[in-house]
Structures are given as structure tokens and as C-alpha cells.
């Protein structure tokens, strides 16, 4: 498993990973961006269970260099309704059909104010990243 960090945030959908071809990263690899929680103990035995990964998003590598890689969020399919559909004129909907399009998911990143999906799970420089197993 390759574990690395976020070296730079280019946009809410593009990130630079601090590992590249030298670390075994290949184009198309998927990574999970996460931060580690506090140490968790077993409530009965008090044995340490380690730190939980708090996932912030997933990215796919689109460009690999020797020591770094650029990754983008996974694309999601969105439906864009036609003019008459969005205006609520169902009778004329067949005249202007909507279409499906793909766009990269926008992750909440530090510095942005527009999106907040989960409490304080914004992507920051220095966040950890590992590839999907």
C-alpha cells in the first residue's frame, strides 16, 4: 500500500500528491485522502485499537512525475434538465430534453467557504493519502 501526503491543493477537484513514479504511483490509481483521528481504545480491555482514518474524499491519478503526482476527484454524473423542464413546463419537455454530463466532484478544501459536507473534514496540505486496496 502506498501512503503519501497532499503536497498542494490546485482546486477543490485537483490535488498534488507528494509521491510519484519513484514510489510506485501509476496513472489511474485511486487514492483516499484522510486524516487520522485520536487514539481509540477498546472500551472493555482498554487495548489501543490505533487511529481511525477519517476519509475526506477520493482522487484518481491523472499525471505522474518522478517525485509527485497530480490527481483529480472522481467524476460524477449530473443531469442537466432542458429549458422547458427546468421551467416546469412538462407538456413541452419533449421539445428540449435534458442531458447527462460528467464533472469532477468538488471537495471541501481549506480556505473555501462554499461547501462543508461533514464537520471540519476539509482537505488541507499535509493531509494523508493512501491508495485503495
Amino acid at each position, binding site marked *: 500500500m502506498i501512503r503519501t501526503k497532499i503536497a498542494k491543493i490546485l482546486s477543490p477537484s485537483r490535488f498534488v500528491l507528494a509521491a510519484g513514479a519513484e514510489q510506485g504511483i501509476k496513472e489511474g490509481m485511486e487514492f483516499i485522502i484522510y486524516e487520522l*483521528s485520536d487514539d481509540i481504545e477498546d472500551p472493555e480491555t482498554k487495548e489501543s485499537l490505533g487511529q481511525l482514518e477519517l476519509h475526506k474524499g477520493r482522487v484518481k491519478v491523472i499525471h505522474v512525475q518522478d517525485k509527485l503526482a497530480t490527481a483529480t476527484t472522481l467524476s460524477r454524473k449530473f443531469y442537466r434538465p432542458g429549458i422547458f423542464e427546468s421551467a416546469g413546463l*412538462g407538456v413541452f419537455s419533449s421539445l428540449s430534453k435534458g442531458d447527462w454530463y460528467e464533472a469532477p466532484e468538488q471537495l471541501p478544501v481549506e480556505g473555501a467557504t462554499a461547501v462543508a459536507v461533514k464537520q471540519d473534514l476539509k482537505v488541507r496540505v499535509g493531509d494523508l493519502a493512501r491508495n485503495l*486496496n
Partner: protein
Amino acid sequence: MPEEGFFGGLNRHFLTAAAWIFTVGGGVAGLLVSGAYAWVAFLCMLVGIGSLTLFAYEQWRLRKQAEQQHASNVQLLENNERLAAEKAELAESKLNAIPADLLLQLEASIRRWSLQDLAAYIGDHIDYVSRMLNLASKATKPIALRSFAKRAGQLYAEAKLSAQAIGDLRDDDPFVLEFKNNAGLVTASAFLRVHQTEAGKEIVWFRVETHSGDEMQHVDALADMQQVPGKGYTVRPACDVKKYSSPDFAKIALMLRALIEEVLSLRG
């Protein structure tokens, strides 16, 4: 307008009526004293005609007022009726439009995704079932849950599993959480996905995706404050491995994958 009672009316008209009575009465008394009897009849007739005229005018005014009020009420009701009819028409047209929109969206969705996505899902599921068969051969006992923990608003469940068995797990593999009560009744409590594996510590973290047991609401709420022991809970794969327990499954899986690839290449 509130209805006026007898005494209310009497009180309102008392001063006017009293003034009239004393004025006319005084006039009549004066004429009687001065002996002008003919003028008494004339005064009475004049006062009578005057009173009747005023009464008739008052009645006419009240009727006119009532007619105006009635016309205004009729117009208000007609406006309300027209507005209600327009709203009903709009609601009806929206109701007719909804199924058309839904059908168009479904049509677009099915046309775009059907074959490739179905093939991908079946391919992934074949891979998942193969790994779950391997897991079942390595972990002969049900996977016992040890604890629940909640972080950043998400509930997680933790279980101990041998490093060898962990090797068959992948991120997001679906699992079902089951609860066995004191009477031995087993019920599904939640739908889980593999979140994190730590082969070195022989630990698997599952992400609780959806609750299906009533007690899970309680566990979720309790996990907000503290870690919750997972006693009585077990985890099993979301597929019924017994259905696929054929020694030739690996071969069948390869055949199915080849079949899917062939269908995709032929159907584009």
C-alpha cells in the same frame, strides 16, 4: 355590524327623542294655553309628516348601504372563486407534468448507463463473491464485533480478524451487521462497508452506512459520548456465500468475466 338591543337603541335615541317630545309637547301646551286650537292640529300634522319623511329617508339610506355591501361581498366571493379555479388548474397541470419529466429522466438514465454499468457491477460482484468465499474458508467462525466508535459524525464498527483473512478484504466491501439477542434471535442491524484494515494489528474498521435495527439508533446516540462495546454483534458478508460454494467457482467466475467482455465488445 353587531346587533343592537332594545335598550341600546333606546339609549342611543333617547336624547334626540326627548328633545323632539319636549319641543313638540311644549309647542302644543303653549298653543293650548293661548287658545290657538287650530294650530295644534297643524303642528301635529307637520311633525307627523316630518317624522315620516325622515324615517323613510333613513330606511332608504340603510337599504342603499346594504345593497352596496352585498355587491362588494359578491365581488369578493367571485374573485376568490376565480383564484381557487386558477390554483386548481395550475396544480392539475403540474401533476400531469411530473410523470412526463420523470419518464424523460429515467429514459436518459437507462439509455446511458444500462449495459456498461451493469457489466461493471456484475464484474465487481464476481470478484467480491470470490473473495468472500476465500474469507469464509479462513474465518470459520462469525466475525465478532468488538466496539463502536463515532468520529466526525460517522459511526464505525471495529472487529478483530486474522491478517490472512484481512487480505481478502477491499475498501468498500459490503457487509451486514447482525445482532443476537438473549433469546437467540438474530436480526440485521445495519449495512456496513469496509473502511480501514490493519493487518498488523488484525483489526478491521467498518463504516456504518444504514441502520436497519431499532437498537442502532441507541448505539449511534451513545457512541456520540463514548465508545460502545459490540457484544452480541457479528458481521457477515452481504452475499450468501453458501449459494456459491462450488469448488469450480473460480473457473465459473473467469467464464462469466469472459462472457461479459464479449457481450460488451459485441454490443458496444
